[in-house]
């Protein structure tokens, strides 16, 4: 019998870091049309990631937030190994992950996609889908496949009866449960979830969020949760990393970042959240316009064209992500100034 190795041979020094990326970049060139070769049509390299440093710790739920085009999904893809970085390093438990993942290293990091309607093979029954994975990765011997499949289904809140069913027979929330069962079938250490609840109805979202929390507790998973809904992020995650135009601009514990955001972009995101109650929103941080094109990232601080606090120094200096407090990093030259401007106070709501 061959069973997937349980990770025991792990050096003690790295026990806090599961996945770490440093100075990660990913560029795409704008194609090789004749015109672009002669230099027409402006800048031709898109920097989807432009120097990303981030760490996913063992057993934590880390949320990655930012506007579309900020590079969240590119980062998720690199972490899961479905695309390679242009430069920089991805390390897994302290060891550099190979650019081309072998079966074993790809097993350890699994992904749950946004749309459970398109991410499950419509022609495979649930039983076959799981059996294929369990056998391919030699998780359990053939005679135990059925029992293991049932165990997985129970873990995600489904019953044995669904083994013979096809994905089309399930609702959105149930499909997302199947997608999660598929991801955890190979006993990964890390789950990358790319907007896993944004295609689901509100009443179902809560059950899937609970499922992530319970899986983290039961299986000791580390979860990177890519999301745009900050209310969901606040509810679920331990830490939050904010991305803007291919960079991480702020990282802190969830309570800290929402109570004391130290990057104006984070602040603007918070002020943009549609609220369930009255708040006195400070309009100074509302953003005008949309993110600049990643083909043409602004000089200096990449956020300065949209920033309410930007001054001369911001036009010229590209601020690095620096420690500005305990477990709080920000890439803003005005992080201290920002701390003095009060946040909208939900306590001021009308009765």
């Amino acid at each position, binding site marked *: 019998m061959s069973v997937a190795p349980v990770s025991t041979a792990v050096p003690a020094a790295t026990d806090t870091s599961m996945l770490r990326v440093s100075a990660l970049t990913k560029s795409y060139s704008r194609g090789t049309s004749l015109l672009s070769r002669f230099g027409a049509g402006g800048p031709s390299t898109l920097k989807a990631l432009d120097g990303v440093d981030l760490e996913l710790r063992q057993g934590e739920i880390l949320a990655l937030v930012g*506007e*579309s085009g900020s590079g969240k999904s590119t980062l998720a893809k690199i972490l899961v190994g479905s695309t390679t970085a242009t430069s920089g390093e991805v390390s897994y438990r302290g060891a550099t992950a190979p650019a081309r993942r072998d079966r074993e290293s790809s097993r350890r990091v699994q992904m749950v996609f946004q749309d459970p309607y398109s991410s499950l093979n419509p022609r495979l029954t649930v039983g076959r889908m799981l059996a294929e994975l369990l056998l391919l990765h030699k998780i359990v011997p053939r005679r135990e496949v059925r029992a293991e499949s049932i165990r997985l289904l129970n873990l995600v809140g489904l019953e044995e009866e669904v083994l013979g069913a096809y994905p089309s027979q399930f*609702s*959105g*929330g149930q499909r997302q449960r199947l997608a999660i069962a598929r991801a955890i079938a190979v006993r990964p250490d890390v789950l990358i979830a790319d907007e896993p609840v944004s295609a689901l*109805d*509100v*009443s*179902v*979202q*809560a*059950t899937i*969020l*609970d499922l992530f929390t319970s899986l983290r507790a039961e299986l000791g998973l580390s979860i990177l949760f890519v999301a*745009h*809904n*900050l*209310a*969901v992020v*606040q*509810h679920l995650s331990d830490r939050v990393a904010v991305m803007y135009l291919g960079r991480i601009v702020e990282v802190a514990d969830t*309570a800290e970042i*929402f109570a004391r955001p130290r990057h104006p972009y984070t602040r*603007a*995101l918070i*002020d*943009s*959240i*549609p*609220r*369930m*109650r009255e*708040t006195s929103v400070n309009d100074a941080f*509302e*953003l*005008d*316009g*949309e993110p600049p094109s990643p083909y043409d990232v602004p000089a200096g601080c990449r956020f300065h064209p949209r920033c309410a606090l930007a001054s001369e120094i911001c036009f010229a200096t590209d601020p690095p992500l620096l420690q500005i407090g305990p477990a709080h990093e920000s890439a803003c030259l005005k992080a201290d100034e920002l701390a003095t401007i009060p946040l909208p106070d*939900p306590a001021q*709501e*009308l009765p």
Partner: protein
Amino acid sequence: MIPESGAPLLRVQDLTIGIRRPGGRSVAIVEDVSFDVDPGQRLGIVGESGSGKSLTLRAVAGLLPRGVEVLSGRVEFAGRDLLTMPAKDRRALMGPQIAMIFQEPMTALNPVMRVGDQIAEGPRRHLGMSAKEAGELAVSMMARTGIPDPARRAKAYPHELSGGLRQRIMIAMAVSCGPRLLLCDEPTTALDVTVQLQVLKLLEKLCDDTGASLVFVTHDLAVVNQTCSELAVMYAGHIVEAGRVKDTFRQPRHPYTRGLLESAPDFDRPERELIPIPGFPPNVADRPSGCPFAPRCGYVRDHCTEAVPPLEEVLPGRLAACYESDRLVEVLA
């Protein structure tokens, strides 16, 4: 805007939408939906996928998908029934009187026509403007919707613009003829939060400026709270609760509304536990007898499964379709 003799601008009465099957049997997807929208009023219709909220809106706009039709009921706009008037008259209302904004601007815009020309099309056809006048109007409408450098952008094609700009183009198109009623189908769902806020504020401002009424369909309770004053909650093709947004959020009187509020994360109350609604919405072709929410409801009693509860006034200005509404008196913290 002063209501004309107190009449609502839009009155939807006992609207039933469904699929007619050969042999006379028909399946109702939306059943007996009634609501009024007064001039200048903003109504949010909230529900989950399959609740019939978008179909209801599309029936008002006359844009039901092929095969789906209005089976019975009335849709009155300024006192005239849209469903029985000649198709030509109805088309003449769409644009100058009633305009619609869709969720996905990329599929709603013509990909091979410059956006400025698309905005100008309505004013040329309905307001009899010359190409030049309409072109100028298009640029000024684009400026009003906050599009930077509108004269240049008017010459762009939809694919050259970002999602937020495309949605602004759709809004500019919708308001170019000064409609009295704006129908919005999840207009910000595809947008980032920062851009969503800009678009919601824009819609609000345009409605304030022109006195237009708004019917806003969404699944996002918080978006309704920011945009609308009135609320209708739909479940399985029925309106189950209706009232003022603030009051309803504070003290929902239908278990489904309450369930929605308790299952959605609220940014201002991070410590609150999320309570999912158990089960799934019923299949429209196979609704349970009685209240459609009964199988998922925590307040259910025997009589709930006997007959569909009528939508009745349970508080001044609040309607709920629940026999047990009196037991929901708790104010949500």
